[in-house]
């Protein structure tokens, strides 16, 4: 009799667990993220955290979604995979989150993603190499990637540049590491398709300050289009070095991470005229359209911080997720949110076009080539796709 009662209770418990996903309570829905709060890129994280926080707070201020308010847990991954694993374990097992939103880093996400999806947690919009994460997760239906693949987007931009400006010799300056590897794969693909070979390549290490030898190599090879896999400071330095070396006829094309406003603002004259390819609109939130300005003012008043594109992107991705939770209704389950995400489409002022999930990856990966003119990024190409 006693054992039957226990069996019954266990059955009932199991049933209850199956009916309601982790993180869903009567008046609360728990979501989390892991960001680099103490590592090398910690300086950029307030934008992401505040972008997400702002969208969730907005939902909560309206009384929550379907009667549930968001509880947001932020963990530190220090840009180290082993720390990210522990952060993910805490989110999954201790905070029992429903979803992990906008986690940051490539190695960190690579270590954490499988654990999350295996535990039945939705892994939404990791800021890392999307194709690799999809592979690691075994193409899990719970993983939704939004970051455009740097290889295909760079390939598209480079091919457009070649068609448009007919450069004779193309050179490539890259940061050694996963980022340079990935972007380099795109450069290689584009060159093969255009039946060209790279005239010169030069690598640098993250943290390098001087780029004179890399630029000299480009100049020696007579390169008239330099593609760079560089981030903020390096983009400015390479552009400045090219001006100093007198490579005035050569063009420079940078990938998505280098094509941000900070580069235009900090680089000033040095970066005037450089090209960049990317999938989002490199707008200055405080100077954008009326809607963006209003958003930027709210952001600034809440967090006492001038927002940049990454803050707006984090906000837009979070918005996408919140809408899907809303669409899933009061009896929200993981399956319902996954279905809602798959059926959803998202447009934002930061996107060039409306995005939809195709095989759980945000598509289309359409890009524009923009050029810095008068200290601001200005579109020089139409919106186009890789294929």
């Amino acid at each position, binding site marked *: 009799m006693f054992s039957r009662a226990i069996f019954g209770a266990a059955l009932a418990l199991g049933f209850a667990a199956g009916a309601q996903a982790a993180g869903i309570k009567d008046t609360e829905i728990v979501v989390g993220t892991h960001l680099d709060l103490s590592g090398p890129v910690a300086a950029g994280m307030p934008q992401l955290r505040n972008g997400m926080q702002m969208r969730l707070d907005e939902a909560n201020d309206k009384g929550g979604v379907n009667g549930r308010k968001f509880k947001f847990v932020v963990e530190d991954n220090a840009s180290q995979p082993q720390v990210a694993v522990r952060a993910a374990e805490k989110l999954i097992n201790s905070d029992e989150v429903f979803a992990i939103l906008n986690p940051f880093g490539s190695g960190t996400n690579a270590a954490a993603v499988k*654990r999350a999806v295996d535990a039945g947690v939705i892994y939404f919009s990791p800021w890392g190499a999307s194709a690799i994460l999809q592979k690691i997760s075994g193409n899990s239906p719970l993983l939704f990637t939004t970051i455009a693949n740097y290889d295909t987007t760079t390939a598209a931009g480079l091919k457009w540049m070649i068609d448009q400006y007919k450069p004779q010799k193309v050179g490539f300056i890259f940061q050694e*590491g996963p980022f340079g590897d990935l972007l380099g794969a795109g450069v290689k693909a584009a060159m093969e398709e255009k039946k060209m070979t790279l005239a010169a390549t030069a690598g640098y290490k993250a943290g390098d300050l001087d780029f004179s030898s890399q630029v000299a190599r480009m100049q020696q090879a007579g390169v008239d289009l330099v593609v760079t896999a560089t981030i903020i400071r390096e983009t400015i330095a390479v552009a400045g070095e090219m001006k100093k070396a007198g490579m005035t006829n050569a063009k420079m094309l940078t990938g998505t991470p280098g094509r941000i406003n900070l580069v235009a603002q900090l680089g000033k004259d040095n970066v005037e005229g450089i090209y960049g390819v990317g999938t989002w609109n490199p707008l200055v939130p405080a100077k954008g359209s009326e809607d963006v300005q209003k958003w930027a003012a709210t952001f600034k008043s809440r967090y006492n911080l001038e927002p940049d594109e990454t803050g707006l992107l984090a906000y837009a991705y979070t918005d996408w997720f919140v809408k899907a939770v809303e669409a899933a209704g009061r009896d929200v389950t993981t399956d319902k949110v996954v279905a809602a995400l798959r059926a959803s489409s998202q447009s934002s002022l930061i996107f060039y076009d409306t995005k939809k999930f195709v095989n759980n990856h945000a598509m289309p990966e359409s890009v524009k080539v923009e050029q810095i003119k008068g200290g601001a990024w200005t579109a020089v190409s139409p919106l186009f796709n890789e294929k």
Partner: protein
Amino acid sequence: MRFPYNTSYRDAQKLLRYRADWLAYGLLAAVLIAAPWILPRYYVGEATYIFIMCVASLGLMVVTGFTGQISFGHAAFVAIGAYTHTLLLTAGVPFIVSIILAGVFTGLIGLLVGLPAIRVSGLHLAMVTMAFAIIVEQIVGRWKSVTGGFTGIPVPPPRIFGFDLGAQKPFYFLCLAVLLAVLAALVNLLRGHAGRAFVGVRDSEAAALSLGIWIAGYKVLAFSISAGITGIAGALFAHHVQFVTPEGFSLLLSLELVIMVMIGGLGSLRGAVFGAVFISLLPTAISAMKPFLPDRVAGQFGLETFVFGLVLALFILFEPMGLNGRWLKLKSLFSAFPLYRKDTFRRGKTYMKSERYR
């Protein structure tokens, strides 16, 4: 107070001499065995990570705490162990063979690095080992055909005799077992001939040499053993992250290990364990503290770094002997209570020290 009174050689050889030792360690063992069923899931995972860090910190303790050589490059040995183990497992080598081979191979690399490195000591050795770590990180990143480059490679789950030990509880016990094996091996090594020689080399090379100790040989031996143990920790580390990328083995990990042995208390295995537990739990403690802090403080960026630095600074200032020193002081306070002498741990006599002839 207790004074050892030996009636046979066996008395001095016992690891646990008194009933109190048996009780204390028995209790600890019982707690550790019961822990996976008592603790919430999350803390079981944390404990597993701590065990792995304990093994790595024990490895570093051999060379830094017992032989007095500082190494800022132990993350490289963790990396070599992790990649060797992963590649062997992927090639179909059974787990037990693979983890032992990972340790042996890392030990051999340690031997190769140790041979030239022991010619220098102190700050110079720190530089050499740090350079070695950077070189290893680069090799791992660039040798794409083997290591998968910066993208990394997946780690097959640990399987012993057909049993998958990748789930949380089995992996907990696997790590615990490895930690105990390493601890037992080190306790025996360090109280034996080699261990005494290590300490002799650390305290005074001139005195050790005059006693006929082959200084260079023991230094290399310590370095190699240290590397081997750290390699075993690396193998477990690979299973912990499940996907190895060079990012995990940066200078930060080396520094973390050095801090573990410093905070734990140099020259004691117990200190290595204390240090690993303390440093590994610090981020967890900070994040657990967050909900109770005012929003203005909890949302502050850089809180983790700040608390970490503060704790380190306080330790260096107020407890240079580390956690183990504090533990010994507490223990003697309780055993001598209420007759504790304030100056118990003050050295009665200090000898002249020379930097030149150590």
